[in-house]
């Protein structure tokens, strides 16, 4: 016990010397205890789920690890708290978790009255429709009178009602509470249309559908679901770190830096890359972390593309395309602010 306290004190002292920035209460506490407490989904394929050996994997999980790497240069210095949808906000407000990386949609009320500060969006999602190919439907506008399978108690259900009302169409909802059962009902032919977030539709088609080619996802996306990590109000230094961890992964992809070639880029003459990787000092000091923070993140966790492809990309059972999550230079929305 004594050794633990000493080690923590020593770690805190080291960081106090290394980090020049004014740190807030949350950041101090994290540095003192030596790990990041991260709230994640209790089980969402591709975003947060424990593998057969109980190790957490997923896109949301990797961002927790990236933040841990920025602070402690160790992707294992993070503890996961699985949270239900109802629990997530009390957990972050009360300080039970330091970081909420749990496929949470960034909205105005959550940013204000719920008391969260959102880091950049790690996954742009939106609600879509899937139908059986044999119906010959090409657009959601042709769905008048359709039977729609939808999960109850979600914004999905409300968006669905809004969309059909605003387009003067009628529909018969088949409302089911459990996600697996919604899918089962759709593939058993109980409804013409399945609606949920487009990423979920794609992965459901890829990994649950009996014959994926028999189903098409319609082009209309009827809602905006930007999923972003969040911290609570009151510690700007901590918020800055989480924010720039996300930007660092996006900037690394844009600069062509991957976990494989990051060491070669240390010799790069490009000042942008030199600043990012800490070859020319200053960025780490400004954030209050080690100058090698971004180098460590890319080396140990990867750039945005690597994180995406490893967890939800085309080589995984989910088979999601980059789409909106492509870089801004490739027609997507992922755009990192300049590191300087």
């Amino acid at each position, binding site marked *: 016990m004594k050794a633990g306290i000493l080690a923590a004190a020593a770690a805190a002292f080291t960081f106090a010397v290394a980090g020049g920035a004014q740190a807030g209460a949350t950041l101090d506490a994290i540095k003192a205890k030596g790990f990041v407490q991260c709230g994640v989904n*209790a*089980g969402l*394929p591709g975003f947060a789920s424990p593998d057969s050996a109980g190790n957490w994997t997923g896109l949301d999980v990797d961002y927790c690890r990236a933040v841990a790497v920025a602070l402690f240069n160790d992707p294992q210095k993070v*503890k996961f*708290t699985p949270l239900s949808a*109802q629990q997530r906000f009390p957990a972050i407000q009360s300080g039970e978790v330091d970081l909420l990386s749990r496929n949470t949609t960034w909205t105005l009320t959550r940013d204000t009255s719920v008391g969260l500060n959102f880091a950049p969006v790690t996954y742009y999602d939106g609600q879509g429709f899937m139908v059986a190919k044999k119906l010959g439907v090409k657009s959601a506008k042709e769905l008048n009178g359709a039977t729609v399978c939808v999960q109850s108690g979600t914004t999905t259900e409300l968006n669905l009602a809004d969309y059909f009302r605003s387009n003067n169409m009628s529909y018969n909802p088949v409302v089911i509470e459990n996600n697996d059962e919604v*899918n089962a009902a759709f593939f058993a032919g109980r409804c013409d249309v399945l609606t949920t977030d487009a990423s979920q539709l794609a992965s459901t088609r890829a990994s649950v559908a009996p014959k994926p080619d028999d189903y098409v996802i319609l082009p209309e996306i009827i809602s905006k679901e930007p999923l972003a990590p969040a911290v609570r109000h009151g510690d700007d230094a901590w918020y800055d770190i989480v924010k720039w961890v996300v930007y660092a992964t996006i900037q690394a992809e844009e600069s062509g830096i991957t976990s494989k070639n990051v060491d070669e880029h240390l010799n790069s003459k490009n000042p942008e890359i030199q600043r990012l990787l800490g070859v020319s000092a200053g960025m780490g000091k400004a954030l209050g972390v080690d100058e090698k923070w971004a180098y460590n993140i890319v080396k140990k966790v990867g750039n945005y593309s690597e994180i995406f492809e490893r967890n939800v990309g085309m080589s995984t059972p989910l088979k999601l395309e980059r789409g909106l999550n492509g870089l801004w230079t490739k027609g997507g929305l992922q755009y990192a602010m300049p590191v300087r």
Partner: protein
Amino acid sequence: MAGHVDTASSTAAERPPALSLGPIGWMRANLFNTWYNAILTVLIGWAILMIVPPLFRWAIVNAAGFDATSPQCRQATGACWAFVNEKMRFILFGTFPYAEQWRPLLATAIIVATLAAAANRRFWKPWFVAVSLGALALFGVLMWGGVLGMTYVENSLWGGLPLTLILSVIGLSVAFPFSILLALGRRSTMPAIKAICVAYIELIRGVPLVSLLFMASVMLPLFLPTGVNIDKLLRALVAFILFEAAYMAEAIRGGLQAMPKGQYEAADALGLNYWQAMRKIILPQALAISIPPLVNTFISTFKDTSLVIIIGLYDLLGTAKAALSDPAWRGFYREAYLFIGVIYWCFCFSMSKYSRWLEQDLNRGHKR
């Protein structure tokens, strides 16, 4: 001998009619004895024919092998037991460090063995309390570790069967003494004590367990200063204890009220004071009467532990659900639920079997 020969060669008229003996006779007497029983028999027989062969084909004939990969499983038309094979350790032990999972296995075995021993009346001695506490301590040592070269594992990593067991065992064994006091308090002649007990029982019984768990996990942290966190498992345990104590108190009150007044008067006549009378005369009989409702509470508590999934603890149901969220193994929920269903059934069925045996064993004196 010659005199008995005629019994073997009795005439057809003397033999009992074939339709009232043997399997046909048994069916006539038990399955087709009235017209509505006949209809029910036919309906149930039809249902069995409809359900069992497809189930058999799904579960055994068309099932993919135990070592099948997930794509092979999706090709198969039957069950995918490879899912259970792959996820068995995760479902049973949750996120407990993989290399150390012999510890929860051993800890679970210790708890089950202690429960099995506690079921035997030969061990109903004061020293067995010490043994049980020792077993619990051993469970804690194995699960937490931190001594004897075992690495420390914090209880937020516990999951699966050991979590389900510890929630129900600790929940019930702590709630039990409280429930006796509450039941006695509710029957007390002292108005203040009676009012407190009645208020507590009715308040707790008036809300669902889910809301208590929510209070413990969602509301409580907001009242505490930032940074002060009471352990999640402890919060869930306290909610369980509060809840089960109220329910068991009512079961025991039923037993107390079933006691004839003469028993109380006899205790008074012997000059026993209140606690002596309760301990030596009233409670042993009242608790024996309360066994069926108590076991009912035990069984429902064991299953209610699955509600902790809403506060983010991975009990047996939680680990099964989390196992289903592995992208490679999505959609095999039938196999997952069947697997944990069998585990739940084994525990609940042994509890109910044991309670029936115990009931008969304790009521030898006055069987009704």
